[in-house]
């Protein structure tokens, strides 16, 4: 499913994970904002993984107006590359393989 970050309904400031209150303008109403692409800022190969885990790369991404995300990938992404992302039912943000 499509990843949704949140945007303040009053000033538009973007957050992920969602907050209770916008620290910029004080509003407490947010709306979902779909994100399908993000830029890779760091990535690491995790050497010890749980059995059955399909991913071995942990990736830090930047999306929208500088919102940072932690996601998983099954292969090494290039730092600086723009990648496609989605969020699974269980909450995991993952890179969609090319």
């Amino acid at each position, binding site marked *: 499913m499509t990843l949704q970050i949140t945007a303040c309904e009053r000033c538009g400031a973007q957050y992920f*994970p969602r907050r209770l209150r916008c620290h910029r303008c004080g509003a407490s109403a947010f709306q979902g904002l779909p994100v399908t692409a993000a830029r890779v800022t760091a990535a690491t*190969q*995790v*050497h010890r993984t749980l059995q059955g885990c399909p991913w071995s790369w*942990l990736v*830090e991404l930047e999306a929208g107006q500088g919102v940072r995300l*932690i996601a998983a990938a099954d292969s090494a992404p290039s730092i600086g590359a723009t990648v496609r992302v989605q969020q699974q039912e*269980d909450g*995991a943000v993952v890179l969609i393989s090319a």
Partner: protein
Amino acid sequence: MSQAVIRGAVEVSYARRTTETTTQWLGRAFDALVEEHQLDPASIDGLGVASFTLRPDRCIDIAWRLGLQPSWLMDDSNGGVSGLNMLQHAVAAIECGQARNIVLLAADVFQATDFQEMAANYNRSTQQLLRPLGIANPNSLFSLLTQRHMARHGLSRTDYGELVIAQRRHAARNPQAVHRKPMSMDEYLKAPLVAGPLGIYDCVPVVAGADAILVSHVDEASPRDRCVRVRAIGGRHNFDQHEGDGLSTGLSQIAGRLYESSGLTREDIDLVSVYDDYPVMSLVQLQDLGFIPPDGLLHFVRETVPSGRLAFNTSGGQLSVGQAGAAGGMHGLVEAVRQLGGRCGERQLPRARTALVSGYGMVEYRYGMCANAAVLESMA
């Protein structure tokens, strides 16, 4: 000048494995403090406890098991800042006359599965967004952070290795450290990777352990306690709304005020204990506290650290001694108080009159949100 003083600090030797419970470890730390300072337990009217694994028990349950009748209680679950956070509250309580003698305890005991459970359920963000990834844990998150730190400052793995090796040199003289064998750079670099660039020696060994501090009104203390004065203490949490890069902490906001209110400057500080969950965070805290000039990181790791000119994490730090959960948040404080009291045996520094201790922790989603620090001075 504050009427509250630190009268004592003890650490029960950490252990890789234990059959004892967190409650029993807390009891051992209390006993060690009572014995070293010949305390009358009836004089203790305040108790604070920091622990992740004590639940369902809380501070009051420990007070009951110890037979204490406190008028002041505190539970703290803020990990790497819990030791200094409890100290900050205890000092205020004593200054306000709410208590005369406060014991602060910290302990944790993890079985392998307990530790994974704690890491996976650390908070709601972790539970909902990181746990489902299966590979997101403190090691892999701080690996991402270390990579960005390396790229920004032009550091290589050997630069972080210098810190680990320097701390290991201290640990060789600490009989309570888990890792005591001197380590070469080759050994550091060849160690198995956990999540590149972090290898196993960049990550703290998980241990069981307990620490304890006694904070009293100055009139309760005797000269044999070798008391330590808290010249300044403070924290700044969530300073960047968790929207930054994790390469600075709230210490960057409070360092100036801390030195100012302590009446000391950075040059007056004899030893530093920074919270070393990862070498990168030691560097970040040292930089935030002014021990590394803004453009002096390379010189610091390549010259200052190997030369031993700055006495930091003189116990060997958590990287050598081990991390006993929330007790890790008291470890650096205990080391500093014992150095200032001249109780460090073979690793005692020749000059230890003043110390700076910092705490860091509570990873929300990407890095730690909490930071605090204290400036201490020996009264001996």
